[in-house]
């Protein structure tokens, strides 16, 4: 095909009309032979996988961003708490050091004792608050499970696309070394593809919240179970 076109191009330039017609004819032939070989179906299948992969990727991007933000926000809230705790302890410690160096009357020390007791009483509430923020950071790590499942699904999709495209190539390449190498690669794919067949009830996280027959919150789960009488 290439040679035909090249020869035409090198030939009489005035004959460009004929050139256009020839290209049109070749395109039609190519399209027809793809249809005859059933290749357009394969390509179509491969193309259908792309929007799904796009949804999954955007889910991963969204989840990772959320997790990072959640963690950083919790850290921003916890840091001042632990700073204050440390600063106050340091200040009280210094006053006590001074008192031991130059002991004053007991009633003069009363204020210091009072301040110290106040500080001690305030510590548990602050550490509880810091712990709450640490737990928030822990919870934010759940993105790893959710995105991990989605990425795994996506790798299956990509493998499927690769398989479809290889099939197209395999069907359109003449016998020879290239074809053998391709076929070998295909066989590797068939082997793993069988394992990753879709099983009805294990679909992993829903990457679109407008999907049908899907719950979007724990409340909906609870309502459904209530409806069913569980």
């Amino acid at each position, binding site marked *: 095909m290439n040679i035909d076109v090249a020869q035409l191009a090198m030939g009489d330039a005035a004959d460009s009309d004929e050139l256009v017609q020839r290209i049109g004819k070749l395109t039609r032939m190519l399209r027809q032979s793809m249809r005859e070989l059933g290749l357009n179906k394969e390509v179509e299948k491969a193309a259908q996988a792309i929007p799904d992969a796009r949804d999954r990727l955007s889910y991963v991007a969204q989840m990772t961003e959320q997790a990072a933000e959640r963690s950083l926000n919790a850290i921003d809230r916890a840091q001042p708490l632990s700073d204050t705790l440390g600063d106050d302890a340091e200040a009280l410690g210094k006053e006590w050091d001074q008192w031991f160096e130059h002991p004053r009357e007991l009633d003069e020390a009363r204020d210091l004792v009072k301040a110290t007791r106040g500080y001690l009483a305030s510590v548990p509430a602050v550490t509880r608050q810091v*712990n709450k923020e640490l*737990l928030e950071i*822990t*919870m934010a*790590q*759940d*993105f*790893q*499970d*959710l995105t*991990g*499942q989605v990425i795994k699904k996506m790798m299956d999709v990509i493998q499927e696309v690769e398989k479809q495209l290889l099939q197209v190539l395999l069907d359109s390449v003449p016998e020879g070394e290239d074809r053998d190498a391709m076929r070998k690669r295909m066989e590797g794919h068939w082997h793993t593809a069988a394992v990753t067949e879709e099983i*009805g*009830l*294990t*679909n*992993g*996280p*829903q990457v679109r919240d407008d999907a049908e*027959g*899907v*719950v*979007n*919150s*724990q409340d909906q*789960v609870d309502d*459904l*179970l209530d409806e*069913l009488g*569980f």
Partner: protein
Amino acid sequence: MTDKNMSILIVDDFPTMRRIVRSLLKELGFTNVEEAEDGKDALEKLRGNAIQFVISDWNMPNLDGLEMLKQVRADDALKDTPVLMITAEAKKENIIAAAKAGANGYIVKPFTAATLEEKLNKILDKLGK
């Protein structure tokens, strides 16, 4: 009164999620916690130890959470063990299938600490533990 020494088995193929659930349980006062990485591993641990509560994922290699649940319910020695599912599977048919197979609770990921506490207590209350 809840027995905080109750032995709990966390079943999930993602180590991160096992750590998260473990941290939450610790926060709630439960420290007697074991882990299993899939349904098969869980059944072995259930049969080898006196586990009083199971918190399980659904989508796992080797043996998934639903199949594990069915096998637990079919086993005379294990059938009364409460099983709480925590899973990303959010189709209505998943929830129905889990309930029919005898799950005591269903939490959909991502979930909050408050949800885990609420469901855990609800199950324990119901069982009078």
